[in-house]
């Protein structure tokens, strides 16, 4: 046994001394290529698709594993990558592989083949009214209030709203039809808050302007006339999603607070305000002195202070004043859209773009901001930190015509409404050239993406009906949720 032990020890030691460096070199991408009789530093391509299980072709040759997969031992150069899956459109791109580097093709979203839209309405719809992070979409078929319909896409809410004497849940419910007096009104404007199920409608009826507060998802739809609470016509009404009882109206450079429960009005709690927004218990506003300041909603006149002490940021605010829109995406991050088309943020690099910006969308999970002009879409990645040597901003490599809106899908895709094209753009890979058309839509009709169910709500040009398209399957959504939970547990 002792002899055997010594022999085996020597053999294992020798094997280890041979295999270990070879394995390390392989892990680094350094391999021997017999065909060229040389040691080569290779690279890898990582391919991950939604849904998974797709077949990958590299320069026409099929990869041994389905996605997610690592294609290794690639000599530096350019490769044609093609991804195929049954019932999905083929996706392809050209990828450059560098020595000892990995080129990730993360979460490539495969589109159904064909992309089918499923109608919800039976009659044509003019446009959609959407409110972010809410379980509903409003469909508008005309100018009157009777032409406003509610669609609850979240089935758990839909089940609660069975009208009397009906046994099946509705797909589209008229909001104002029950009240004849309201049904002939003309909607002038609406106000909403992300993640809040309430909306306020400014309705013109018989030459009178009325404000209606509506609760769209609990019980039967409630509509309450709150016109008396607005002695003057506000240009904006906002509220905190966790405190819908208190409204903040903005008019004539002042902000007033309204208590819906007691019907109390607290006029001009803040004055000399150019623009404002609410986040949590804080009001952020630009004062007429051209500074971005903040204060508490409970005692707004006390402790008004600058949001940022950075002279550079405050100078930028001063320079690009006035601002048409403020958005506090968290207590720490605020975006400001100037009337000159500039886009600012209170975190570095402060000036995100200096002109023609029409809108922006924040991706909370990925900490990314998408913003657009009429012809360009840019993405700013705040998760990578701010390096003055490096521009964190990237542009989608596509010639847009007339961008109206953009929505985030997952962490790295944007759905862009470009004139009558509905496009999907990858914001991470492939030189940002991966832009594909999903559908033709009615111009200026709005679209809405529900991350929970992986559907886009739209009005296809061909049918004009309020419809939806499945973008991400339920199975892939479930996988993503499970993975997210596992990552959160790891962090904890």
């Amino acid at each position, binding site marked *: 046994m002792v002899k055997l032990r010594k022999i*085996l020890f020597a053999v*294992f030691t020798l094997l280890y001394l041979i295999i*270990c460096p070879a394995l390390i070199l392989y892990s680094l*991408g350094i391999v021997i290529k017999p065909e060229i009789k040389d040691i080569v530093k290779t690279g890898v391509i990582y391919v991950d698709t939604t849904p998974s299980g797709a077949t990958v072709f590299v320069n026409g040759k099929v990869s041994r594993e389905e996605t997610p997969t690592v294609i290794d031992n690639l000599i530096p150069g350019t490769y044609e990558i093609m991804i195929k899956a049954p019932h999905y459109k083929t996706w392809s791109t050209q990828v450059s592989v560098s020595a000892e580097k990995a080129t990730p093709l993360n979460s490539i979203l495969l589109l159904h083949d064909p992309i089918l839209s499923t109608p919800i309405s039976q009659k044509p719809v003019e446009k959609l009214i959407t409110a972010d992070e809410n379980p509903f979409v409003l469909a508008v078929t005309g100018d009157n209030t009777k032409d406003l319909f509610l669609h609850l896409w979240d089935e758990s809410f839909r089940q609660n709203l069975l009208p009397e004497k009906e046994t099946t849940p509705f797909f589209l419910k008229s909001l104002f039809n029950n009240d004849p007096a309201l049904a002939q009104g003309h909607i002038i404007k609406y106000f909403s808050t992300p993640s809040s199920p309430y909306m306020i409608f400014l309705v013109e009826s018989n030459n009178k302007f009325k404000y209606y507060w509506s609760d769209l998802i609990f019980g039967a739809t409630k509509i309450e006339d709150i016109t008396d609470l607005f002695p003057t016509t506000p240009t904006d009404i906002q509220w905190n999603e966790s405190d819908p009882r208190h409204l903040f109206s903005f008019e004539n450079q002042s902000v007033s607070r309204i208590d819906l429960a007691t019907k109390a009005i607290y006029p001009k709690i803040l004055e000399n305000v150019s623009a404002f927004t609410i986040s949590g218990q804080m009001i952020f506003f630009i004062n007429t002195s051209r500074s971005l300041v903040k204060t508490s909603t409970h005692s707004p006149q006390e402790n008004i202070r600058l949001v940022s002490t950075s002279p550079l940021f405050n100078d930028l605010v001063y320079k690009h004043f006035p601002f048409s829109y403020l958005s506090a995406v968290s207590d720490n991050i605020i975006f400001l859209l100037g009337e000159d088309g500039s886009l600012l943020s209170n975190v570095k690099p402060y000036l995100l773009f200096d002109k023609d910006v029409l809108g922006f969308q924040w991706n909370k999970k990925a900490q990314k901001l998408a913003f657009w002009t009429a012809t360009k879409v840019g993405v700013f990645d705040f998760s990578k930190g701010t390096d003055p040597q490096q521009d964190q901003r990237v542009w989608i490599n596509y010639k847009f015509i007339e961008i109206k809106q953009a929505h985030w899908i997952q962490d790295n895709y944007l759905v862009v409404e470009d004139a009558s094209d509905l496009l999907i753009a990858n914001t991470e890979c492939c030189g940002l050239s991966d832009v594909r058309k999903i559908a033709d839509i009615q111009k200026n009709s709005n679209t809405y993406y529900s991350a929970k169910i992986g559907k886009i709500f739209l009005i296809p040009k061909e049918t004009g009906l309020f419809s939806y398209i499945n973008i991400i399957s339920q199975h892939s959504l479930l996988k993503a949720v499970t993975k997210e939970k596992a990552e959160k547990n790891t962090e904890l």
Partner: protein
Amino acid sequence: MQHSYTKENLSPEEHKLQRVLEILPGATSWTILIGMIVLAVKQPLWAAILIIAIDLYWLFKLTYMTIFLLLSYFRLKTEEETDWKEKILHVDNLDHYLQNPARKPSPLNVAEFFSWRRHHEELNNLKNSGELPPPSSHIIHAILFPVSKEAACIIESSLESLRKQSFDSRRILIIFAVEERADESIKTDILNLQNNHQTEFFDILVFFHPDQIPGEARVKGANVTYAARKTTDFLAERNIAFKNVILSCFDADTIVSPNYLDCLTYHFLVTPKRYQTSFQPIPVYHNNIWQVPGFARVIETGSSFFQLIEATNPEKLVTFSSHSMSLKALIDVDYWPVDMISDDSAIFWKCYIHFNGQYKVVPILTTLSMDVAGSNNWFETVRAVYKQKRRWAWGVENFPIVVRLFLKNKAISRYDKIKHTFKMFEAHVSWSSWGFLLSIIGWLPIFYARQDFTYSVISYNAPRVMGIIFNLAGLSLVISILMSLSLLPKSDRRFPIKEQLIHALEWCTLPLILTFLSSLPALDAQTRLMLGRYMEFWVTDKHRTVKR
């Protein structure tokens, strides 16, 4: 030149050296662990490379150990049916037998063939050595049981197993070494045992070890040394030659198989340098194996496997737990250390140094069974197992003493000193660090990967490589599971197959068990030694439902 095997009463220079050597294992373990964490955060690329090398080394070592585990297990199984009495007769009639050996079995009957071949090799070695043994009829077994808190029913079971020995019980001397500080009820129970069973053996001696003898710590070694001295006096009064006495120091819960003492007798007789040899059986923990939580079953089976593997390397084998040796050798080295917790391993090193390296351990391929450390509930069992493993890991206290004495001893070859020093050091450092490296730290480079690492080939290849390594290691796990199912006694519960299936699944918790009930207590012990916080002896809680 004799040097005292102790860390007490050292000269200032020796004390400094002692402290440096006490710090070394713990410092090395912590350096490895903290170093790897820092490397994973600061240089994830280099950390990933190192982790691959470590994981591969672990795979090779595991494979190497698994091969010897299988060989040792096979050998254990082949010796299960051995008629030791017959083999003892061959030794007693050595010349006659060698001239008229038993018929050689067919090589197709593998077990018998290897057993026969081994037996003949041993007999020929004995004959050629010229160191012929005493007649087997002169051999007396002295079985020493240290008692502190153990219940009478536990000891009774051990006694019962000795009564059932195929070896003549009239040549079995039982010694109970009872601590004076033990409860009166314990003392009464022991005396009752003595009264009830004295006539069944050569004798049953009971010695009460006084508390607080100067120079002694509150350790088991002090108790058994006291009893051994008294036993020596007892044997001297009866003119029994110490050379004919084999002393076995058992735990109070040790239960031996009926042929254990015959097996031990045979190995004693057939070993040429029997007075410079310890005899190490394979400890298993089967007494209450099905009464404890699954993780305790897994870890104790793992301990048995470790001893099986060690048994294949007698050149580096060290005594552990219940073992046996010649009383003569014990007297020559002045008994066990009276100030050390790890008396089981310390006695080997004491003998090794005393005999200038001419001392070894012979593995005897038979098992003796003890209790799994356990308690009435799951959490208390975790605590009990943790403390037991920490006490075992406290064997690191031998390292500084052995190295110091190696430095002074000129008779032991440099090669042997280096070999033993390296093995001891590597064993303890591996014990405390492997669990953490494999289960937790190995994955940190991926977790803390920075941008440049994230987009490197190794960030994608390393997890795949590690996955393949762990999958290959899974083969060893499967072998371990199968062997453990074979080794374990059959469950007496209603659904034994179900128990076995559950036990197989319990092995899947091995990474957790290795980390928190093996590496962590080892690190704890080494850290205490490093900081000079020497451990008190703690009698292991054991819980067993005794069937009537």
